[in-house]
């Protein structure tokens, strides 16, 4: 139990009770898929509450229903990444198809405890930040390991114009100001190794901006923000 963040457990409880929005439910389902411990807890609570579902009065089902289901399945064009495709429990990368479904800004609150479900191999991140664009759509996820290394992954299609670079930043404190975590080679997953910074804390700001090729000329973010978000403390 100790490995689960309390926030995540509470969200999972709310999910079983049916209190999450569709967007939140989709996100927590994805997390549950990658977290056997959380999945077991959710399964247990579901089974415990199941008798309440069985207290509804049964209704006769039309024999046509199965044909309607088959017709619906036949009509559906196969998606490029079908819902049924299994993801290994230790797959650190959330499937891309999942992100459009969680575009609403309400995922910000859910970012609490988000990383606990990923089971990233190697060191556990100290904080995880989901970076959202102005419309609240997730663009990237930064995991900061607290030893001056971090990992960035992009979860949206980001086009970097010729002659420009993406740059990752954090704001450890107002005194230190925005500090570069590294200039990125396109919108691809990257491991960042940066200068000595204080250990990251919850609610620390992370962002990715579009900068001139090779990075900001001033050492501070100058370009448009691709995504920004506050860190959620893990563990």
């Amino acid at each position: 139990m100790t490995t689960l963040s309390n926030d995540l457990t509470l969200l999972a409880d709310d999910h079983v009770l049916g209190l999450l929005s569709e967007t939140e439910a989709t996100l927590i389902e994805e997390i549950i898929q990658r977290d056997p411990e959380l999945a077991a807890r959710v399964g247990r609570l579901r089974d415990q509450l199941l008798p309440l579902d069985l207290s509804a009065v049964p209704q006769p089902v039309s024999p046509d229903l199965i044909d309607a289901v088959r017709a619906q399945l036949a009509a559906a064009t196969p998606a490029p990444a079908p819902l049924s495709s299994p993801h290994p429990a230790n797959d650190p990368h959330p499937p891309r198809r999942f992100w459009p479904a969680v575009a609403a800004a309400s995922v910000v609150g859910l970012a609490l405890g988000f990383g606990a479900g990923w089971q990233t191999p190697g060191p556990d991140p100290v904080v995880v930040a989901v970076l959202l664009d102005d419309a609240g759509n997730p663009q990237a996820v930064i995991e900061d390991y607290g030893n001056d290394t971090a990992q960035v992954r992009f979860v949206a299609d980001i086009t970097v114009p010729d002659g420009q670079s993406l740059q990752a930043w954090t704001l450890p404190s107002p005194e230190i100001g925005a500090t570069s975590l590294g200039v990125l080679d396109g919108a691809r997953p990257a491991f960042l190794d940066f200068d000595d910074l204080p250990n990251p804390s919850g609610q620390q700001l992370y962002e990715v901006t579009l900068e001139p090729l090779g990075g900001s000329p001033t050492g501070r973010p100058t370009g448009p923000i691709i995504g920004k978000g506050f860190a959620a403390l893990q563990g």
Partner: protein
Amino acid sequence: MLQLAPNTPTFGMTTTYRQRPPAGRTRDRMTHVTDRTARLRDALKQCAAENDDGLVQILNIEGPQLLGLATRILGRRDLAEDALQDAMVQIWRKAQQFSDTSGSARGWIYAIVRNRCLNILRDGKRLSLMSPEDLATVQEARQSIEPTQDWEILASGSKLQNCLRGLDDKNREAILLAYVGGYSHGEIAAKQDVPLGTTKSWIRRGLTSLKECLA
């Protein structure tokens, strides 16, 4: 989102009990339940292997109860049938994700149907496509859901019933409005005529006590 008038009639506890099977059949029921669990697990395996006999099996075993559940949440038979149909499609597509290390096949199937119902309820776009008359009937049917009664028909002396009985009335009511009635936090707060934060803390507190009791 359904607009529910605040201060709707309260859901007082009643002592209405529906008929229960005679106690002497417990052993048969246990065997039956175990058998059903295994059959549902096999049915999901068939779905995962793209054999649609699995869907037929699930509908044969659980169809009427699932439709009953959907009808209770949605309040309308046609919407409930839509929900069950959509849920069966999802069960087919997600069957490979089921793992019996995380709860029973039965619980997994019911959760998909429940979630489909809740998504329909909370899909403002879908509701806005309904005629005002249809929307009114949905709202009326939802108003008449009395989730705080249904728990009393749980097998008498069952752990869940005992544990629910042990909760503070307000906590129990909030949990049942959520789980059985399919109401959102905001709707429950309106029904209980308390601030949102109070409802949330009643639900949290109630669920914590319930889980401790059930453990």
